[in-house]
């Protein structure tokens, strides 16, 4: 049997919003090229945990993380780490689609121009590849010069996924990526995630239990800032070990 390869190893991660502690000694291994779903009631710390992986929390004053988060064996909480490079390697998709106020093409070309030295021709190629990778090319190839904000919600979200993968990341963090998207758009994004897992390690925060059970390989259940249970998704939804997990996945609280 092939040995499991962990892309991310979190050890004793604690997180603080000023004086308020939001995460407590989180230990979590994220397997490479798998989809890990993070579930739990509102305010349980799942988004906070996710936001440590690319240190995006540092954009806000007074927030700090303690502990260790290894990506490919390197602690990304190390102050010496190149943040621009970290955020290229660890892309993020948010709950609300966030296309830049520019054309479809320029949205996707943005990270390419930022991170790589590429000719106009290369940029065009990479944009097309990223849009194809995000299953959006066929729908936008004739309106590349139109505003990204004019697309439908589901298309905007896939545009954001295209923009994220244009940076050639290794990890994609998705924070409730379909909660603002209609069922058809959601289905397209879920199908897309299934394909993306071949190239990327995906961590998704979701409130939608069925979504977690449909798409993820591993599920981690968070409660009050602690990780209660992590395991194969199939087990979490058929036979969770912990009573709290059982109550949450079967909708008895949350």
């Amino acid at each position, binding site marked *: 049997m092939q040995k499991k390869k962990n892309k991310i190893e979190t050890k004793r991660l604690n997180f603080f919003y000023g004086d308020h502690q939001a995460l407590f000694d989180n230990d979590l291994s994220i397997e490479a090229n798998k989809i890990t779903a993070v579930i739990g009631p509102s305010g349980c710390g799942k988004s906070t945990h996710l936001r440590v992986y690319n240190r995006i929390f540092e954009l806000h004053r007074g927030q700090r993380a303690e502990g260790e988060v290894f990506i490919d064996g390197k602690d990304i909480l190390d102050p010496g780490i190149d943040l621009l490079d970290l955020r290229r390697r660890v892309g993020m998709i948010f709950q609300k689609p966030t296309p830049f106020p520019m054309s479809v093409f320029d949205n996707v070309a943005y990270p390419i121009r930022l991170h790589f030295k590429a000719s106009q021709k290369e940029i065009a190629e990479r944009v097309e590849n990223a849009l194809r990778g995000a299953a959006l090319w066929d729908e936008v190839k004739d309106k590349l010069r139109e505003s990204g904000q004019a697309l439908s919600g589901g298309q905007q979200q896939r545009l954001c996924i295209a923009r994220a993968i244009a940076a050639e990341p290794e990890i994609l963090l998705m924070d409730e990526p379909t909660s603002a998207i209609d069922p058809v758009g959601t289905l397209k994004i879920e199908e897309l995630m299934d394909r993306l897992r071949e190239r990327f390690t995906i961590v998704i925060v979701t409130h939608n239990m069925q979504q977690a059970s449909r798409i993820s390989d591993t599920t981690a259940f968070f409660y009050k800032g602690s990780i209660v249970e992590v395991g194969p998704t199939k087990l979490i939804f058929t036979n969770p070990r912990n009573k709290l997990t*059982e109550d949450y996945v079967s909708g008895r609280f949350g």
Partner: protein
Amino acid sequence: MTMKVHFEKATRNLREMITENAERAKTAVRASLKAVQTKDLEFAESVVDGDMAIDMAENMIEEQCLNILALYQPVAEDLRRMAAILKANGEIERAGDLASSIANRVRDMARETPRINWDFTEMAELASGMFSRALDSLETENEKIAKQVIDEDDKVDELHHADYARVANCLANDPTASAYYLSALTVSRCLERLADIATNIAEDVVYLKTAEIVRHRAQK
């Protein structure tokens, strides 16, 4: 605080339905065995007449299970409960059919005057006891009782195998009453299958409580 009032209500209703049908099947099994032992055709008829109610209830229970699965998409123990009930539902209906088969044999047996009267008491008590307790374990979701039921299946199997040899012997010694002995063997087989059904239901209960599939363990 629960957000699942509707789901809990639907599940409660389903459990009541299956318990009710289990009671019908238990009554049918008891009456069919009484008919065999007393050769009383009235008992036999009551079993055959009652089977229709068991069949109808099976359909309604299945429908209710599928409704719950479709409307609430239960997971974890809730899901295992639906799986267990859905399967036990079919087993209960089959037990009803077995009771009818046993009752039907009474007519044939009543016509004969065998030299050796068949005594079903031990096997009947074992099998119907297992069946009864398996259904109790389903109703109360009691894994301990379920496991005891599973352990008892071997005894009934042994008794049934012994009946083969007995029937061969009886046919040789008393060939004029062959119809009686062949019917007796059919009843013996029905009882053995009733014990199997009890075992299957008990295994579903173990699955419901532990998520462990214990079926076919003995063959491993």
